[in-house]
């Protein structure tokens, strides 16, 4: 194949196909791009926070949809009965030919009860369950259409009314920071003046450091990116945690229609960077969607997988998941270990049966002699 052939067969996008030694695989990213656009993207976002922090409004604002059309908000009396629920809603958004299958996992009931001791075990179980399912699919026979329902990102809503993180916030974030990318968000930020907002952000960052919570860190811009992008990344990194306001109502302000909240003393504009960090949050989410997925795959999922398989190796007979057909895709070393363990367990069982038999015999003898000699 001569360089010339390759060059002319691909729409002439490359500079200098006549260069000797030119192969043309620089076209690869475009091919990947085209394929992924056709395939579409999947993203799962989890939102956690007490009721009334504006989570649903924010999600609707972020994606300009109404994810919760018929919502009934329960009163305090009804809330007593509820434990934390997991509600996943999926919506397909398409923009300029790119399809995004977005799943938002909501957690109503979190932090509502008087005693919130156990409110996050349900959530952690859900996250683990998605990992488990993926592991099962990945190790299965038919791997073509694996659906990725793993949680790629978790927005944790912090109340702007407190002085920082509450004990529940700290405990929850510590429990999930090794399983999912945690992005802390300050909700209803229009409660705060600018100074209060800065103070709260600093306080939260200090407390996150103090408790060793690992939140999601934006990757630094590569050195070959342009200055604008580097600047943008710098600004984003400096604004964490994002203080946001959500709204889907159109208000008339300064002659134009904006999305915002109308107060007697002014209008809070959702998309005004001086009013709140909504745009920054949206930018971060969109430009780093890929990175969030990668970190979920490479870090959290791999952690889960290695933990699971290590554990699974010791509990062989109790239904742990290994490849359905042992011959394909599994480590021969692990297979051997497995067989050895199975043998050992079988031996143990036999020995236990023997001991039980002996004990029964001794009991019978004891009864016969009239004194219960038990060992």
């Amino acid at each position, binding site marked *: 194949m001569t360089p010339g052939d390759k060059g002319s067969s691909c729409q002439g996008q490359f500079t200098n196909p006549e260069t000797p030694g030119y192969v043309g695989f620089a076209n690869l990213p475009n091919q990947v791009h085209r394929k992924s656009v056709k395939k579409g993207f999947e993203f799962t976002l989890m939102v956690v926070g*007490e*009721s*009334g*922090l504006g989570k649903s409004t924010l999600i609707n604002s972020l994606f300009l949809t109404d994810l919760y059309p018929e919502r009934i*908000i*329960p*009163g*305090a*009396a009804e*809330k*007593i009965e509820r434990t934390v629920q997991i509600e996943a809603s999926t919506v397909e958004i398409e923009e300029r030919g790119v399809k995004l299958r977005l799943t938002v996992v909501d957690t109503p009931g979190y932090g*509502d*009860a*008087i*005693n*919130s*001791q156990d409110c996050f075990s349900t959530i952690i179980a859900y996250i683990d369950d998605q990992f488990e399912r993926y592991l099962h699919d990945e190790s299965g026979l038919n791997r073509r259409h694996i659906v990725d329902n793993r949680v790629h990102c978790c927005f944790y809503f912090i*109340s*702007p*009314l*407190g*002085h920082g993180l*509450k*004990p*529940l916030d700290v*405990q929850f974030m510590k429990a999930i920071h090794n399983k999912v990318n945690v992005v802390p968000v300050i909700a*209803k930020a*229009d*409660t705060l*003046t*600018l100074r209060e907002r800065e*103070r709260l952000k600093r306080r939260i960052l*200090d407390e996150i450091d*103090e408790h060793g919570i690992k939140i999601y860190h934006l990757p630094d811009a590569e050195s070959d990116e342009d200055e604008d992008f580097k600047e943008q990344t710098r600004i984003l990194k400096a604004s964490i945690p994002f203080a946001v306001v959500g709204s889907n109502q159109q208000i008339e302000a300064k002659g134009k229609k904006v999305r915002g*909240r*109308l*107060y*007697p*003393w*002014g*209008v*809070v*504009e959702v998309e005004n960077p*001086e*009013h709140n960090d909504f745009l920054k949050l949206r930018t971060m989410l969109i430009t780093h969607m890929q990175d969030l997925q990668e970190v979920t795959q490479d870090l959290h999922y791999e952690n889960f997988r290695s933990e699971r398989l290590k554990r699974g190796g010791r509990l062989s007979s109790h239904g742990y998941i290994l490849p359905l057909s042992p011959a394909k895709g599994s480590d021969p070393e692990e297979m051997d270990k497995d067989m050895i363990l199975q043998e050992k367990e079988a031996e143990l069982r036999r020995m236990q049966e023997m001991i039980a038999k002996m004990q029964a015999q001794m009991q019978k003898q004891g009864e016969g002699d009239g004194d219960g000699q038990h060992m």
Partner: protein
Amino acid sequence: MSEIVPPEVRPKPAVPAKPSHVGPSSTGIPSALGSQGSGVGGHGSGGGSALLGYIGIDTIIEQMRKKTMKTGFDFNIMVVGSSGLGKSTLVNTLFKSQVSRKSSGWSRDEKIPKTVEIKAVSHVIEEGGVKMKLTVIDTPGFGDQINNENCWEPISKYINEQYEKFLKEEVNIARKKRIPDTRVHCCLYFICPTGHSLRQLDTEFMKHLSRVVNIIPVIAKSDTLTVEEKNEFKQKVRKELEISGIEFYPQKEFDEDLEDKSDNDKIREAMPFAVVGSDKEYQVNGKRVLGRKTPWGVVEVENPNHCEFAQLRDFLIRSHLQDLKEVTHNIHYETYRAKRLNDNGGLHPISSATPSDTQESNL
């Protein structure tokens, strides 16, 4: 005992009720004294049991006022709510002085207390020659833990302890002329402005304590709600309070007469008040106002279009301050006292020195 001795005592009904009396705030003299109905100052003529000349009975109001000004009076207000709801700021704004230490000044070392603490701080403030010993009772740690079960117990205990203290003083043989009143006259309960509904903790607290102390629920940091959201939220909260059977102050059952009832009805319709507190001043339209400055405008604390702080202040301080004390004394305290006396078949030696047994026959 209450600092103002009523000049005449109306016959008390079987159910404890507020005795009405002539106080410095009322504008009229009871008609039993004469057909002249209003004002200080004499009238020579009139029908019925007219007085033939000016006696000067109406100067009793002046005398009482002078006395009150000399002795001053106590007012104890308790603030309850999760941390960060602006309790201290609101109290400072209400009384226009730094009477409460703001917890936003907490440094790293001062963590949220593990259990509910009770902190009472007193200040003497003066206005127009009238001295008031104001005690603000703060409850840091309320509602801040992960497990908030029974977090109202320390508060309930404190309130009952104050009643107990007063009771002990009252049954003493050698009583003080003026028993120091540390009973909680009013409890401001701060509701978190979620915009959805009351939280479980809110209803539980108010259920347990509305029979023991006057509870005034307020919606804290209400600049987070737009006007529609605020009205909706208020309706929801009122409905929930009704369903749970929570009687907040002013309680319907203690309305004396029609006038009271109509006044209080108007107030009850407007409660819970949605307030914003601030101790900073800003320039708005050439005036200096207390408020909060944001990039999109200044929230004026005393502007009735912005929030209901002015209403709360007028209600709490300018019209119902004395009434709060009376309801506490005549109803909540009496209920406690009756229960105490009935429970142990009389007062047991709670105080070692006083021979309270001899008092029993008088009681």
